[in-house]
Every structure is written in C-alpha cells, then in structure tokens.
C-alpha cells in the first residue's frame, strides 16, 4: 500500500497540468487579487465625516444631536463645522471644495450635495432618522406633553447608526476578503482535476492504462484507496501552500483560527477530489471533452461563490439560498468568512456540516461508480 501511494505520488508530482491548477494558478491569482485589491485590504479605521452646517440657517438641536453620535468610545461619527454662512458653503460646494452642507429653512431640513458617496449616504440616513424622531417628539408634545421626556429617552436609546456586528477581535469588515476566501474555495474545488485523473487511471473503461492496471492482481480497492490518498496528499499540500501564502506572505486576514481554517480546507480538498471523481464517472465522454465540461462546472460554482463578483454571492443568498447550500465552493467561502467575521462558531460549523454532507455524498457516489470491476464496454 505504501509503495503504491509513493509511486502514485511520483506520478502526480510530475503531472504538470494538475500541478499548475493546484499550485501555480491559485498562487498567481492570489497575487493578482492582492495587486488589484491590496490597497483596500488594510484595517481602515473609521474617519469622522466632516459635516458643514450653515451657521445662519441652523438649528441648535440638530447640531447637538449630530455632534453627540459616537462610533465608538474614541470616535465621533461627525466632525461638525458650523462656522460658515450658507452663502460661503454654497460657493465652496460650487467650487467642489466641500462635498455637501446642511441648512434649515422654514423648519425644513435641507442637505445639499454635489455627488453621491458613502459619507453622503451615511449622513442622509442619520438626517432621515433625525427628521422622523423630531416629528414623533413634536407629535407627542402636542398630544401627550407629559410623555415627551420618556419618549425622547426611548428613541435615543433604541437607535444605533452603526451596527456593530464585528467580532471581539475587531477585524475590519472588508468585503474584498471574500475574493480571497473564494480563491481558497476555488483551489479546494480544483481537486476535481485530481479526481478526474483518479478515475481515468483506475477505471478500465476510461483508458488503456486503467485497463492494464485493472488486469493486474493488485486488489482493486487497494489501488483506488492508495490513488485517492496520493491525490489528497498532493492537493491538500497545494491548498495549504496557497492558504499560508495568502495569510502570511500577502497578509490576507483569515481571522486567526488556523486549526479551523485547516479543517475546512481539509474537508474542502476531500470534497473537490470526490466531486471530480463523481463527475468523471458520470460524464460519459472521454479525454479533453470531459476535462472541459468539469472545468466549466467548477468555474461556474466558483463564480457563484463570489470569486468574480462578491455581489453575485449575496444575490444568491437573498433570492435562491438553496443554490448556495448545495454549492461546495460557496460553503467553503462562507465557512472561512464566518471564521473571520463572527465571534461565535455556529455559522462556521453550519457551513462545515453542509460541506461535510456534500463530501460524504460525493465520496459515496464516486465509490459506487468506481467499485465496479466489470464493464459493459471498454
């Protein structure tokens, strides 16, 4: 058995095509992602928004309200600048020196901007809530003046402008990381190419080489198990190298729970190889045609898991979540994302369980196809 694994490893280690897809391609893609998004990956602390309020058209309550909003203990949401006239601010806005300013006219709140952006969206959201709260308080004041104090307290306590769902590690919520998690998922699912080789070299109806091996007196299960183990060793090594390269060389933040990350890569690698073996057994065409079909399927699964457009992943999660649950690539991406993003491990274990179930199904399916030793045709 050990001799079979050793010899098979010698074959696989010289299989340039599979080595490229398992080792070289993910490293290159990771490097390209890093070069493309690298400047977006750093922990970017929140900077307070400069908010200009026209001093001659102001509302003392408004300035106080806005100045009081905290992001955290040290950071305010807005840096209020209320020392300029409306005329001056309008001129600065025309000159593009500022992005917007606030003024109040006839009890009506106005927010003038010359372009859309994150800061403008946050500001508008806060202002909308301010208007709603003001109206509620005014209405309560006119109908039940004795309850104004309690309503005001309640409203101030209940709303939060920044939802803090980040972990205690204070990891930055950077959507760019999804690309790298999807890249790890892609590397795992590229195990399908080793799965194709496994079937091609052990199924007598797939190649003359397999027919020759099947004609030999070595037990069939022994061959399949040793070839599978060799494929797993090769591909798991490739996935780990890719992970450590992304994590330690490129500095992509995976959240730090290395054993659980390795666990998901371990299961993902098994899943990828078994998936390829199952597809290879199911698809009746041979040679490059089969490789092409399986490559297309894998690519589609990776695209749906957010490798190319993270938004696609969110759209699937929103409209057809089932598709996300049966996509091994998406499960790997989600498991890694949960490890990075959430404090608890519940979500992580959910996706790991999904991935494990798929892996068991793929292994069982491919075993049922591969155990046959007599064929209808060769």
């Amino acid at each position: 058995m050990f001799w079979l694994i050793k010899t098979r490893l010698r074959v696989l280690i010289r299989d340039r095509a599979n080595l490229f897809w398992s080792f070289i391609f993910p490293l290159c893609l990771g490097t390209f992602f890093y070069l493309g998004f690298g400047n977006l990956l750093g922990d970017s602390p929140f900077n307070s928004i400069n908010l200009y309020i026209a001093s001659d058209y102001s509302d003392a309550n408004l300035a106080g309200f806005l100045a009081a909003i905290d992001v955290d203990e040290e950071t305010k949401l807005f840096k209020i600048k209320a020392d300029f006239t409306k005329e001056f601010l309008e001129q600065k806005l025309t000159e593009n020196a500022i992005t917007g300013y606030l003024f109040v006219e006839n009890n009506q709140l106005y927010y003038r901007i010359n372009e859309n952006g994150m800061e403008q969206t946050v500001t508008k959201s806060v202002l909308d809530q301010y208007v709603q709260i003001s109206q509620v308080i005014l209405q309560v004041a006119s109908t039940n003046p004795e309850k104004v104090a309690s309503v005001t307290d309640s409203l101030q306590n209940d709303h939060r402008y920044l939802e803090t769902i980040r972990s205690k590690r204070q990891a930055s919520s950077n959507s760019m990381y999804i690309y790298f998690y999807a890249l790890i998922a892609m590397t795992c699912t590229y195990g399908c190419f080793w799965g194709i080789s496994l079937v091609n070299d052990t199924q007598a109806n797939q190649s003359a080489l397999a027919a020759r091996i099947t004609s030999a007196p070595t037990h069939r299960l022994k061959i399949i198990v040793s070839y599978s183990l060799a494929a797993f060793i090769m591909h798991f090594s490739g996935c780990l190298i890719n992970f450590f390269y992304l994590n330690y060389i490129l500095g992509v933040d995976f959240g730090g729970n290395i054993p659980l990350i390795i666990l998901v890569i371990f299961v993902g690698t098994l899943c990828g190889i078994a998936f390829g073996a199952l597809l290879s057994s199911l698809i009746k065409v041979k040679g490059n045609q089969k490789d092409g079909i399986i490559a297309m399927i894998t690519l589609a699964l990776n695209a749906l898991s957010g490798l190319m457009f993270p938004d696609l992943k969110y759209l699937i999660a929103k409209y057809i979540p089932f598709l996300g649950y049966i996509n091994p690539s998406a499960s790997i991406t989600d498991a890694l994302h949960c490890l990075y993003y959430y404090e608890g491990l519940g979500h992580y274990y959910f996706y790991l369980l999904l991935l494990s179930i798929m892996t068991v199904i793929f292994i069982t399916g491919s075993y049922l196809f591969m155990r046959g030793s007599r064929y209808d045709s060769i």
Partner: protein
Amino acid sequence: MIVRLSEVTKTYRKGVKALDDLSYEVREGEIFGLLGPNGSGKTTSINCLLGLLKFESGTIEIFDQPMGPDRYDLKAQIGVIPQNVAVFYELTVEENIDYFCGLYVKDKQRRKKLVDEAIEFVALGDYRKVHPNKLSGGLQRRLNIACGIAHKPRLIIFDEPTVGVDPQSRNNILEGIKRLNQEGATIIYTSHYMEEVEQLCDYIIIMDKGKVIAHGNKEALKNLIMLGETIEIKVEEPNDEYLKPIRELPNVLEANFKDHTLIVKSGKGATNIPNVLAILNEHRVKYGTLYSSLPTLNDVFLELTGKGLRD
C-alpha cells in the same frame, strides 16, 4: 488447457453482437493466433478473457479455473500487452517497468532483477532514465511489452503489438515473442497482419462477426480454400483476346490484368503454368518475368472474410 472460452456471447448496448457463441481453446506452450478484420471481436474476446467485460452467456476458464474480475490468483500469472501504449508518461522507462512489475511482484530484490531482465529483453538499456514521450513509436511499443512481461507470466496476451512500428522494431518484437514462447510462456497473439501470424503462430483461429470461421495450423487453413496457385506474368500488351482462353482453362478460378501483369489464380491440383504459356505463345504475346506462388494466409483470410471494406 491454458484458456478455454465456451459459447461466450457479448452484445454491446447499441445491439451490436461482438461475440456470438464464441469458443476456442489455447493449449499450453503454443503461440495462438487470433486473426480477424477490424470489429471481428478479437479485442472484445481478450477483454472478456481478462475479466474486464461483462458478457451475457458462456464460460471462460484460465488454467482450468473459472476466470472472473476478482480472480487475482489467475491474473497474477497473466501478462497483457494492450493495443495502445499504456504506460505512465510521468515515469521513466525503468520506473514504468518497476511499477507494473510491482503490481505482480511485491519482493523488492526480486523485482529489481526482473526489471533488469525485462529492460535487457526489449533492449531499452540505453533509455532507462528516459520518459516515454521522448521515445520513438517503436521504442514505446517495446516499453509497452516490457511492462507486460517483466513479471514472467505463464500466459501472455499480445493485442496487436506491432501496429504503427517500423520493420526493424516489428522484427525485434516478433523475435522477442518467439523467445518468450521458447522460455515457456503460452502466447495469445491478435493481429490483422497475416505475415506476422503466419511467421509466428502454431495454431490460428480466424474470427469474423464474433464467430470463429476457421481454425487450425496454417497448412490446414490454406487447405480450406479453393486457391492452389497464383501465376503472375509481365506481358507487353494486356489483351482480352488471350485472356478469354486462359479463363477457359481447366481449374482456373480467375484471370485478370493488373497494369501489365497477368494474374491467373488456379485451384488445387497440377500447375497451370505450361497451359498459360502455351496460350501466350499461340497469341504471339511478348512476356517477361513469371512468378508462381502458393496460397498465403492473406489469401485464406480474404477468401474467408471477403474483400469488402471494414471499419
């Protein structure tokens, strides 16, 4: 008996009957030729014999024991040289032979000796560390053979091993097969190259459409056909005037021109050479070289399987 196929029938999914109640026996120590046109069922019969293919009915015995996919004890005594070169292109010549030998022989020391002998046998000593894709077609064929014989099998199956090789390599392969036979191996040799089978095999069966249509040694097969003699004469002027009386000669099966060569085929019995020459002289035909040949296995094959093209 080394191999016994009894009334084996195999039909492929598309309804093509590849083997139709096929029966044959291979005796110990002989070189058994399996002849037939493309699609006649030669390779299918080999795959059934090796336990790779399912078949509907019939029985297969090897070394007087029923053969099946799990008969590893029987498989251990068989060597297979498939039609296509079936080796790992990632391994060197020596590693390939060692690998396939290792599927049969576990002992490392013994295996090393067997690998060396196999390399010497196919004369690939200079290419031990070379990868198969760097070898010529002929050398790859020799490697293919070495991988199938290194473990010294009792029964060796050669499935068209000389397809696409040059005459020197072909000769080397055929000589090697004879040597293996002399060393005690029983050989099953499938081919559609008549001269190889004629040169090599002790006993031959001719298959067509999944059935044995003739069997015996080469002399016995030649006696199965009507042809006794083929006369070829170079003539200056091919002409129907003298072709007609030649065709009317007793025992002549057919007479035709091929360019400037008159070809006369006669049945068994006395030679027709004097009669043909007499007619040519009578018609004052100028002629040159004359060849007379006895029937070959090719004539037997074509007469039995027909001259229609096959896939």
